């Protein structure tokens, strides 16, 4: 309780426990904590180690990172406890992990003779989900090494594996670490074998830690110093710094995180973003430890943040190279890519009057999300909304959740679809981001995006996974046993199938054991058609879908059946049809309602009856009219929802 009471009097967190000049400060004991930190812009690259932690979502990355902050004295034990308590609420995930895209930590390591040298460790955070492969690749490119952190009770997951491969492609030095060794269910031997098989080396080289108890974390910090190469670069060359993250902050504008490769950046100088040639003044430059500490610049190998006063992350893009305006570099660092939306969905406010609020909310989110694109869309069934492009399903889910949670909007999102390129017989090409844009004329060819998917699962599910991938038009690229009972399968699959319900199906057929990762892998020509859904003869654009010819019938039957269940009976019969062009492929009927009156009104309880009426009146407001048919919002939501994609990381 004393600690809790003490929280109120904690010193402000912005005060770093050891400032660069304060070299004689003696701190209470946690063993080889550095007595002094190295000053930014004056640190020899030899003494810098840049690393990231690659881990699956719940394998304990944040806990390990916190423990490192504590052991290196960047956050003191008391503040750490408070921070740990904060983790109970929503700030918990955001607290340290969001603020610490790149934390600079001092660490004194002993050489062979036992002499202590203080090093500067930069821990760079990586976004941990499937849609942000590009951002991950930039974070990795900012590092020389990676800690591969795996839950000793669960083993590696597909997501981690994909990032591991990415790290290996980037020539990063990998330090395999098993976490949560304090758990009774931990099987460190088994998973050490698995990791050794994946990255080569001896299972005994696999470190074992517990982020929770702190066990093994000090040796890990020593190993980071020992095993990871120091950064190299030309200190005298024009500056080249790579942007690996860019975050909008209400008070500061965009905060850009960079890794300096060559040269040097100083406050007040003019800098140039090499992809856009835009020039900005460096208002502030510094390091995070664990709060932003402005300094006099950043030199070769260093990692830090810069602020130029821009208000939109599009002006400071991940992957871009920053150079000096006065002495610009000739070549950028390479690897910059414009974010390209791959999945589109219509977002419509349930209450039409929320349309301006939705527009404002999207405008705000855009400031912090360079990949978010949108344009107004009008749907006969859903009214005014936006066609929004996302990097992938998870990105969609995150944006939607933020719109609903942070901006209080109730939204309908239409069935997500991928982009198609349609070439008509007359040679005209149409880029389709919305089924309603699908051309009517004679079609020569349709191409759709495909992904390279990696699936990890216990080997008993190989058959079930193969069957599923077969149904989803996948082709097997390869398969490897990670251990006796775990398999890695590699497939090429149409992105549209992933977007539809692949993850759901995969989870249900493997009782939740399979994990999935994928990345884009070009386009393929496919036999695709547009299936339209008609209510009482009127097309409901929201339910239209572009599907493979062999799946059209199934989609039609499924959607017609679903709608029959979801749309309440009306005063008249409502036929539901699924059609390809003018050909009807499925049909259901909603019979006319004949009775809705409540016969009695017991004992004069009119209140109950009126309340029912008031509730129904409220319900009416949530009805959309399709011709004469009243369709409840819930029907749209339920018919369009792809539930299974929730929670995928």
């Amino acid at each position, binding site marked *: 309780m004393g600690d809790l009471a003490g929280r109120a009097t904690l010193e402000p967190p912005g005060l770093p426990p050891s400032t660069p000049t304060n070299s004689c400060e003696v701190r209470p004991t946690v063993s080889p904590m550095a007595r002094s930190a190295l000053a930014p812009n004056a640190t020899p690259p030899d003494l810098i180690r840049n690393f990231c932690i690659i881990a699956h979502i719940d394998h304990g990355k944040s806990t390990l990172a916190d423990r490192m902050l504590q052991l290196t004295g960047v956050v003191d034990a008391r503040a750490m406890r408070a921070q740990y308590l904060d983790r109970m609420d929503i700030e918990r995930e955001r607290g340290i992990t969001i603020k610490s895209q790149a934390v600079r930590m001092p660490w004194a390591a002993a050489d062979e003779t036992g002499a202590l040298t203080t090093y500067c460790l930069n821990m760079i955070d990586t976004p941990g989900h499937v849609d942000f492969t590009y951002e991950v690749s930039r974070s990795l490119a900012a590092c020389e090494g990676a800690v591969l952190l795996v839950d000793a009770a669960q083993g590696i997951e597909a997501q981690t594996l994909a990032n591991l491969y990415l790290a290996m492609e980037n020539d990063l030095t990998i330090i395999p670490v098993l976490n949560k060794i304090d758990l009774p269910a931990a099987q460190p031997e088994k998973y050490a074998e698995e990791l050794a098989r994946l990255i080569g080396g001896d299972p005994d080289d696999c470190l074992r830690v517990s982020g929770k108890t702190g066990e093994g974390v000090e040796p890990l910090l020593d190993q980071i110093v020992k095993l990871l190469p120091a950064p190299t670069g030309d200190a005298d060359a024009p500056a080249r710094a790579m942007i690996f993250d860019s975050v909008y902050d209400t008070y500061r504008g965009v905060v850009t995180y960079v890794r300096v490769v060559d040269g040097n950046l100083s406050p007040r100088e003019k800098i140039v973003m090499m992809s856009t040639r835009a020039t900005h003044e460096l208002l502030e430059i510094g390091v995070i430890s664990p709060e932003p500490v402005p300094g006099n610049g950043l030199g070769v190998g260093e990692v830090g943040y810069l602020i130029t006063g821009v208000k939109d992350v599009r002006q400071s893009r991940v992957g871009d190279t920053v150079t000096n305006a006065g002495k610009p570099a000739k070549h950028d660092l390479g690897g910059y890519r414009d974010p390209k939306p791959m999945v589109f969905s219509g977002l419509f406010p349930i209450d039409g009057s929320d349309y301006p609020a939705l527009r404002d909310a999207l405008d705000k989110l855009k400031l912090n999300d360079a990949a978010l694109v949108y344009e107004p869309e009008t749907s006969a069934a859903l009214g005014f909304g936006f066609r929004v492009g996302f990097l992938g399903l998870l990105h969609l889910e995150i944006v939607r959740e933020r719109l609903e949670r942070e901006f209080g909007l109730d939204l309908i999102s239409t069935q997500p679809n991928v982009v198609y390129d349609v070439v008509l017989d007359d040679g005209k090409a149409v880029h389709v981001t919305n089924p309603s844009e699908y051309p009517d004329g004679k079609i020569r060819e349709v191409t759709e995006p495909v992904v390279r998917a990696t699936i990890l699962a216990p080997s008993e599910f190989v058959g079930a996974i193969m069957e599923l991938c077969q149904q989803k038009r996948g082709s097997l690229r390869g398969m490897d046993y990670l251990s006796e009972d775990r398999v890695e399968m590699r497939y090429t699959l149409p992105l549209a199938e992933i977007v539809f319900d692949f993850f759901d199906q995969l989870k249900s057929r493997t009782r939740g054991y399979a994990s999935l990762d994928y990345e884009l892998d070009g386009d393929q020509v496919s036999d695709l058609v547009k299936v339209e859904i008609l209510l009482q003869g009127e097309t409901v654009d929201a339910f239209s879908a572009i599907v493979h010819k062999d799946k059209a019938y199934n989609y039609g039957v499924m959607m017609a059946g679903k709608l029959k269940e979801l749309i309440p009976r009306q005063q008249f019969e409502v036929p539901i049809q699924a059609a390809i062009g003018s050909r009807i492929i499925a049909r259901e009927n909603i019979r006319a309602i004949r*009775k*809705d009156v409540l016969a009695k009104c017991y004992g*004069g309880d*009119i209140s109950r009856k009126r309340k029912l009426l008031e509730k129904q009146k409220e319900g009416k407001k949530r009805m959309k009219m399709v011709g004469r048919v009243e369709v409840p919002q819930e029907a749209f939501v339920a018919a369009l929802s792809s539930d299974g994609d929730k929670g995928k990381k």
Partner: protein
Amino acid sequence: MSPSALPDGDPAPASGRLPASALEGLADIDLGIYVHVPFCTVRCGYCDFNTYTVTELGGRGPHGAAVGVDTYADVALREVDLARTVLGDQSPTVSTVFVGGGTPTMLPSADLVRVLDGIRQRFGLASDVEVTTEANPDSVTPDSLRELSEGGFTRVSIGMQSAVPHVLATLERTHDPDNVARAVSAARDAGLQVSLDLIYGTPGESLSDWRRSLDAVVALAPDHVSAYALVVEAGTKMAAQVRRGEVAMPDDDDEADKYELADELLTAAGLGWYEVSNWARSPATRCRHNIAYWSGTNWWGIGPGAHSHVGGVRWWNVKHPSAYAARLADAVSPAHARETLTAEQRHDERMLLGSRLVSGLPLEEVRGPGRTAVAGLIADGLVDGTSALSSGRVVLTRRGRLLADTVVHRLLAP
């Protein structure tokens, strides 16, 4: 199997006093009194009414007040006292009294008469007062009915429900179907008007079963018929049976067929509809107490769980008989909560309730867009075109009565 839940509302004052606005014009509005008798010998599986068996009550209730069949009349009369105090000298004489339940005829006729006498003493009864009691065919005799008639009762509403044994069995009604005819003729001999209550849509009831019940009703030539579609209420034994798949949920289409058949056969037999679920031999034999509910006049509900309405204030009593008795013993109003209707709520209720009557709604009371909806309702065959054109009233067709909720929503269109 708890009886249906009470609505939420605002707290009611211990004195039971009403705001002055509710009492405005009190003298000029018909006043009805409902008396709830919360006792039954057994609880039927479909029933969610506020009623208790002797076993359930176990003699002394949880609130310590003795309450039971033998003492109930005195407890109820205390609330009649309260009603008289609250309504004051402006109160008109009582136009209608309706004793419902439960099974009112679980009380000795003398007690029912004593309650009526109490009402007469405190309020006075209008010269043409209508006094009804519900009755179980098994718990009335020629003598008890004569006693009621002599005591001032004018009508008896007999819970027949069905003439078909397997339907009665599913409803867990224990009465002997033959007793219905005996009760009807005894009531008539006693000079009472007779109404028969029916339920349709019971699981397992075929259309021909229902026809058989209707034929039996027509043969008995009652003055009045109420026919209610079975509603499976949450918390009842029947709801549990439906959930377990033992009986089928009543089907709206089947109930629609049965309603149409009832309306057809009853109309042919000279019983005309005057409210969605009620038919009468002539305007004179319509149940005026029932009409009061739909036309929004004033009534005071006596008894546990009873609902009241006076001048735009609705309230409802605590449900348990012993809690009810305890409140009255402490000279505290038994009202559990109340609500004061807003102008919009009163309008909604007017549309909701008035549209159910054969007299319909005057067109001028239907507001703006709702009024333009009337043409569409006529075109859809839900509202009678002739009444609308010739007398300016919105009257439901047979189809419209079945879809009354739809009609009301369209009349209330924003």
